[in-house]
């Protein structure tokens, strides 16, 4: 647990103690100081704790640990560690092309103002399905909409390796078509091995060497 979370837990505990004091001794509010205490402990500070807690949870929900904490996602987590360069997630994860602790979220949210909120709303639906619905097999899980090249180009656009690769100039307008999403990066017989969880059963896994 990192320091921010500890500070937040401590702050929430202090606010709870102040709230408890006001709840147990409401007669304090007859005096002016008591009124100020009630306003702080029953409105300002709890609102602050709630806002900070929401931010902390939203931040945590972008972590790889969070995404892979549901059983159905375990195989998708494996696809980050498979010892095979042709797997796009493995190549990105193992070479630090994406931050390892935020690997899922880096590629699976829209880079728009409300993108992460939309993703969270869908996540709430997924949790409900996990506990109250019929959980699909990992290989049956599909994206809601076709994968948007924008998520790839968020990092790759402008990269020399991307723009000068001969495979990206098989036709003169290839990069333009990719940029306009007419040609999908991941489903046009190019980079089409993404998670491929059905093929992971006996695949060898990569383990990072421990730093001495």
């Amino acid at each position, binding site marked *: 647990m990192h320091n921010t979370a500890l500070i937040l837990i401590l702050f*929430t505990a202090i606010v709870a103690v102040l709230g408890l004091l006001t709840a147990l001794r409401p007669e304090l509010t007859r005096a002016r100081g008591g009124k100020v205490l009630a306003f702080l402990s029953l409105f300002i500070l709890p609102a602050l704790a709630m806002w900070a807690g929401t931010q902390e949870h939203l931040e945590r929900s972008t972590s790889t640990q969070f995404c892979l904490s549901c059983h159905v996602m375990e195989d998708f987590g494996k696809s980050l560690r498979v010892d095979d360069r042709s797997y796009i997630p493995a190549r990105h994860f193992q070479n630090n092309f994406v931050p390892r602790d935020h690997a899922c979220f880096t590629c699976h949210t829209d880079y728009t103002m409300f993108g992460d909120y939309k993703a969270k709303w869908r996540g709430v639906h997924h949790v409900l399905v996990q506990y109250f619905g019929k959980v699909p097999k990992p290989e049956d899980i599909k994206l809601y909409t076709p994968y948007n090249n924008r998520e790839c180009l968020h990092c790759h656009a402008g990269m020399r390796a991307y723009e000068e690769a001969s495979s990206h100039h098989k036709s003169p307008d290839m990069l333009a078509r990719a940029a306009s999403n007419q040609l999908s990066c991941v489903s046009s017989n190019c980079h089409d091995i993404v998670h491929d969880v059905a093929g992971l059963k006996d695949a060898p896994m990569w383990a990072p060497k421990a730093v001495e």
Partner: protein
Amino acid sequence: MMPTITIERRIRWSGILIVLGLLLQMLTLLWTHPLAFMCFLMIGCPLVAAGMLLFFYSLVSHQSP
């Protein structure tokens, strides 16, 4: 005029709701899991919000003598 005892009772309930909500929020912060996030959002936050609303209601419905 609303008796002082009524507003104090409401403040007490408001405090209890807020404390319960905050305790739950605190517990969820100890755990990184979708269920913790949902408990925070769907139980903790509504409890705190209900406590705040009750506090405001007790203020606006109180008439000074």
